[in-house]
């Protein structure tokens, strides 16, 4: 199953010039202003404060640390990802607003790193969510982190960094891996399928047998719509 290639899909350029200029501006702003949510799963997190503070100052690149996934664009996963933490990482990833990017710092996210032999850590992060960029190194130095971030900024500016669409397009593949790891009744409170419909990113890879499994035991997740139901019901005692 892991044969799906990560073909960098370049965003189609829109026809009329005004829209194109607007798209350029938007891509430029997206690249120049990134909010990162660094999820300190492991030892790599200690590299981030020096990157943000006076010596390597990320703010000059327009990168600010943010607390809640809703506000963040980049999910920085720093260090080994144990199975228990992976559940929370997936939940946080799904709660982020797209276009969202995942950067795996430290070699533990790349191929399990020092803990390659451990039964408890995930070896291949991009099985469970699309990862844009890996920054190898058993705790890469801040220069490496910033170098990686700049590479990501160029990609965004060029418009190639939309691996987040891949999560919706091949949701079944990702869900399968997740269910393989966490068991059949694995479910996050975010309704990814309806979100896929909302952004019309529905493709053949989205719905499959894994999603059917999800449907069976999923607790209802549609949003509470404002109802003006006036039917004369027995008022609650």
């Amino acid at each position: 199953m892991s044969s799906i290639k990560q073909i960098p899909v370049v965003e189609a350029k829109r026809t009329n010039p005004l829209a194109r200029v607007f798209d350029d501006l938007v891509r430029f702003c997206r690249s120049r202003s990134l909010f990162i949510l660094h999820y300190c799963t492991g030892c790599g997190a200690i590299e981030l404060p020096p990157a943000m503070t006076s010596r390597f100052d990320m703010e000059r690149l327009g990168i600010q640390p943010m607390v809640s996934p809703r506000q963040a664009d980049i999910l920085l996963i720093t260090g080994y990802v144990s199975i228990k933490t992976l559940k929370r990482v997936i939940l946080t990833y799904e709660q982020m607003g797209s276009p969202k990017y995942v950067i795996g710092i430290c070699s533990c996210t790349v191929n399990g790193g020092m803990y390659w032999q451990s039964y408890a850590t995930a070896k291949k992060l991009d099985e469970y969510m699309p990862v844009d960029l890996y920054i190898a190194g058993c705790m890469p130095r801040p220069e490496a982190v910033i170098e990686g971030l700049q590479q990501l900024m160029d990609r965004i500016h060029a418009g190639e960094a939309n691996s987040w669409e891949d999560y919706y397009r091949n949701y079944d593949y990702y869900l399968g891996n997740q269910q393989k790891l966490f068991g059949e009744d694995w479910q996050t409170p975010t309704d990814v399928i309806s979100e896929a419909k909302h952004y019309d990113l529905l493709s053949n890879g989205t719905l499959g047998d894994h999603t059917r499994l999800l449907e069976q035991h999923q607790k209802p997740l549609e949003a509470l719509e404002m109802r003006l139901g006036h039917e004369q019901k027995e008022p609650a005692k």
Partner: protein
Amino acid sequence: MMLTLLDELLLFSGATLLVALFIGRGLAAGWMVTILYGGQLLALLKMAVLGYGGGTIASSLSFEIMGQELSWRFDGLSWFFALITIGSALLSSWFSCGAWERSYIRQGGNIWLFHTAMALNVFTMLILLASGDLLSLFIGWELVSWAGFLLMVLAGGVATSAAMRYITYAMAGGMAIFGGLALIYTASGSLQLEAVTTAVEQMSGAKLWLLVILFGGGFGVKMGLMPFHLWQAPAYAETPGPGSAFLGAISSRMGLFAILLVLVKLFGIVNIESLKLPFTPIDARDLLAWIAVFTIILPTFTAMKQNDARHLLAWHGIGQGGYMLLGVVVADAMGGAGGLLHVFNHATYQAALFMAVTAVIYRTGTSDLNKLGGLVVRMPLSFVVLLIGIIGLAGLPPMNGFVSKWLVYRSLLNQGMPLLFLAAVIGTLGTILSVYKLIHNIFLGQLRVEHEHVSEAPWSMMIPMLILSAIIFVTGLLPGIPLEWVASALQTVGLPVPDHTLGGIESASGSLDMIWVIGVLFAGFGVGALVFYSAGRSKRVHQLDNYAGGHFLSADVRYQYSDNFYAGLMHLIGGWYRGSFLWLERSIRSLVEFLSLGMQGLYRRANAEFYLLTTALFVIAWVVI
């Protein structure tokens, strides 16, 4: 005798009372009573000339007992108050007919007694408002307080004890007024208003002080002013739904009407101001102002601590009463107008809020703020009504509460009273805080599992609520209309009248034009919406799809933050006001208990003859010396 318009009105409300009394059994009784209230409103509007600076309409009903002659007549002030009374009665009884009535009967309530009590309340209030001289004022006053007692005692259980407490306070107030009445009668020989004004001129300082205290205290009890405010919150909260809406809206404003009539019109603010406390710079007017200001602050912050929606609103009723008195007591052009307009505004949004809370109780069965939450998705219209109500109660621009509070602030500013201004603002901020707690704990936050299938309140309850919120918004947008009536009321009481336009108040030192302010506000909202909705389409997510530090939220866990809502604030000021007045009331009660124990012991003495002999000896000795 020729039936004057006032007689028509009184006959009409008498008829409503009789209709409620005799044919109150059937379900249609509710609707019939509502239609009759509508008739009363029409009769009142026919007297509309009063509202626009007209003279007074005397009633043909007047008779003479034991040398006192009683007469009834209506003037601008009573017309203004009558309008509010009948308006809130009409909407409250409309709210009570239909669905609420059925549920009230199902819960064992006596709907016939409810309609009769409401009709009785309106009838007695009209008599009080129409009183021509002090004696008819006192008769009306007693009738109103007893009718209020009847309405409060309906719900039984806790309501009875609250009503009992009310009646002891009301009787004490009544007796104080009765004493004051007697003092005036001896001083001026007759109880007619004109005679009293002449008598007041040459009355000595001490006597006038006594009168001010007696009348101020007596009327203050009904208005729930500071030292006597303990009874009002539980009494109004425990009355059945629409009853509390009616009581909350108007019943404690009768005290203000009486204060206006007696202290302002008869005694006149000028000689009230001349009354100096012996060796302090404070005069009677300042004393009243400070009582009003304390009535604003303390109840508002007690309201913040309440965990029951109805109690919270009732405590606010007391707080807002303080504004009205403050406006009237400052007695310059804007202050008087602000105070009276606040009576009208408060009536509208207090009734709307009580009705919204009753609708919530009707649907969910409880008004405990810690057991509700997230109802906005299931009861959107009640949410809108409550929202408009709380914006009015907090006095924020789009709604009418803002205009009257603005007037009161401007009057304090013009008169240069910084401490009063500060206290009034503290009151407003306190209201904003506790009012947000109300709407947050009921309508916002996590929707509980058991409230998922709750539906909106039925239309018979919803229409009066929507009408009230429409009134709140319209009088907020065009404050000129109510200001017209307020101006005529001010003329009859003898306070200066501010020049008002349709949109607000024109004055040299800074004017207010609500049409422009609200226009700009909604333009701003329009621009904000434009910017907001130009970006991508927003996706609604489920209530549990929330950031909780990576924790998986589940429906059965109640994670709504509602109890001890302002923990930080309460840490600091929680200890400052732990019911010092409750302690005062309890000490008086235990004193009476102790005395009566002593007296009863007196009668158990066995050797009664011993008494006889001692008194005889004592008397003879006293006579001989």
